[in-house]
């Protein structure tokens, strides 16, 4: 109380402590425990036995691992390709202040309020070939084996993921578009640029860092898609949608193989870290540099 004012950096250091403690207890420690568990064999019930590299060799030799990686990256890439353009367009559209757009915004953001499990259960019911949307509305092309054909099931997962997260990323882009100085557009108009030209010459370049932030969230977030896929398809049909996170759960908690599941968890952490770092690199050396200079 007495020396806090003017004490410089040293007296403020303790402010970090609570956050640091929580991060250590719930972030670092479990991570270390998982790495430790990956060198053991444990059925979740009995003794934890040290097993050396057994879990690692069994997982790395398992053809299921490359497949799960492939599925994970496929979902990541496809959902990025769907979400990014749609989010930018919706975000730009909603950034302009019209009353009807504000009303539409409320509707667009509704999926944000729903939990993944609820969304998955709802889509499962809607996609039922006999009692779902297609049968109910009498639209024949909607009556497909949505969750039973490997390709369709993967497409369904990408669609539902996009449906769930586009509102969030639209919100991010909307606020970014609002940050762009109006003077830029005024100057462009004087130079005779149309709406489309303005979008590609001003809006998109100005959104560069938002694009990187939003992409990082999408890419790293897609590594942890578990709840939605688990409830929607449980990794099926067969292993068509068995992404890494689902594979980890099924091995650990269905198969009672905590060692191999911990190996997958460690791989997930490494892949996530690598991707996040790579995306930061894409943003240039100094992500805090201003984009407005020379505009």
């Amino acid at each position, binding site marked *: 109380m007495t020396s806090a004012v003017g004490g410089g950096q040293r007296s403020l250091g303790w402010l970090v402590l609570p956050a640091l403690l929580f991060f250590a207890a719930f972030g670092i420690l479990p991570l270390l425990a998982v790495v430790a568990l990956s060198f053991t064999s444990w059925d979740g019930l009995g*003794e934890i036995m040290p097993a050396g590299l057994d879990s690692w060799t069994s997982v790395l030799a398992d053809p299921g691992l490359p497949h799960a990686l492939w599925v994970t990256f496929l979902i990541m890439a496809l959902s990025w390709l769907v979400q990014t353009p749609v989010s930018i367009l919706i975000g730009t559209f909603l950034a302009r202040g019209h009353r009807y757009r504000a009303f539409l915004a409320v509707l667009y953001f509704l999926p944000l309020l729903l939990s993944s499990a609820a969304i998955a259960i709802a889509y499962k019911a809607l996609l039922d070939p006999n009692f779902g949307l297609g049968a109910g509305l009498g639209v024949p092309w909607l009556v497909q084996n949505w969750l039973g054909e490997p390709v369709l099931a993967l497409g369904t997962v990408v669609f539902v993921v996009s449906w769930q997260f586009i509102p969030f990323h639209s919100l991010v882009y909307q606020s970014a578009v609002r940050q762009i100085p109006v003077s830029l557009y005024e100057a462009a108009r004087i130079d005779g640029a149309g709406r489309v030209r303005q979008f590609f010459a001003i809006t998109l370049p100005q959104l560069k860092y938002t694009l990187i932030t939003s992409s990082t969230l999408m890419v790293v977030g897609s590594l942890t898609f578990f709840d939605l896929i688990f409830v929607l398809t449980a990794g099926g049909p067969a292993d068509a949608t068995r992404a890494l996170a689902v594979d980890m759960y099924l091995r650990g908690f269905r198969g009672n193989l905590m060692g191999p599941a911990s190996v997958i968890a460690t791989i997930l952490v490494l892949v996530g870290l690598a991707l996040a770092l790579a995306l930061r690199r894409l943003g240039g050396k100094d992500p805090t540099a201003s984009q407005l200079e020379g505009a």
Partner: protein
Amino acid sequence: MALAAPLGMSALASCGTAGPGQARAGEASIWYLSTQPQEGIRQAGVEAFNAANPDGKLALTFFQNDAYKAKIKTAIGADQAPTMIWTWGGGGLREYVRNGQVDDLTDWFAENPAVKDKRFAPSFGAATIDGRIYAVPCENVSPIVFYYNKDLFAQVGAQPPTTWNELMALVPVFNNAGIAPMSLGGQSRWTSMMWLEYLLDRIGGSEVFETIAGGEKDGWSHPAVTEALTKIQDFIRAGGFVNGFQSVTADSNADQALLYTGKAAMMLHGSWTYGGMKEDGGDFVPGGHLGFTTFPEVEGGVGDPAFAVGNPASYLALNSSATEEEKTIAKNYFANGLLTDADADNWITKAGSVPIVNGADAKFAGAADEEFLQFVYDLSSNAPVFAQSWDQALPPATADVLLTNIEQLFGLTITPEQWVANMNATQTS
């Protein structure tokens, strides 16, 4: 985390301040699953037992199904488990036994023959590991039943099939009438597994799977397995199951709805779906439109047609790390608290199910679903073998591979030969 606040609802005031696993002095603890109507029946049973045994009471805690599955594992690992461990028997029980966490009850049953004789003999199969009994069968039996829609059979002028060839012959008959022959919630996978369980038994007898579950190398290479797999793929290619069955889920009861709305003519499913169809199907069950019979015989098969598969019972195992005092109370509950007359009555009247008590059918007279109860009773008590679901009988890691392969088999993406090879690969570990 070690404080372990109970996730479930604590049902009795006597639970007091002790953790969920530890009862107070002079009490034994028990955890049950919390869905109704079973919860009420379990609670009534424990309350009656406590009233009759003021010196050795039970502390009862209820858990939701999935919460229980997660909780019981952690609790056993941390020595916080209740005195009595509720289980589904089979592979899960085998894990407890292998880790020395439950007591061998074989000698206790030998000293108390009345407890054993009271129960359906087939119910002990899933409680027996390597010839020793490790759990007390209790509650009710749920065999897998072959259901059919009587109206649709009358419409096409057919009889329920008694053999596999008759079933195959019915496929085009129903398809031509614009009706799906068979309902199946294929997305849930264990629903497809029930077909293989019955088919393999009808073709090769119950020994084939028993050998496999025992871990024999290349056990899946038995010719009866290949024949069963080929037969089911023939059935799928002929259009036996409803279109898009891989997208139909059993947890939403969409498969039952296909049967009672007249979109599908037949369904193979657990006896528990009877209650669901009665609840949701309007006049379908009360009006007598639902037919039920046993799984068809397979021409040339050697299996006993009286064989049944499903959930033979629920089980209570005795925690080996409980104190002697707690174990005495638990054994008293096993002998005198479970499946009493009142308890058995409750399972019949409140849950509409068949308790695993010999002679329970004497109580069926006048019950709302007398005909169905009698059918389940006869099927379950007369079965020479009442097998558990394969995914329960096999080790958990193998069960996951099994379900994935079954899904591929039903999706026609692998051949029976590939299926056998994939499954044999799990036998070596």
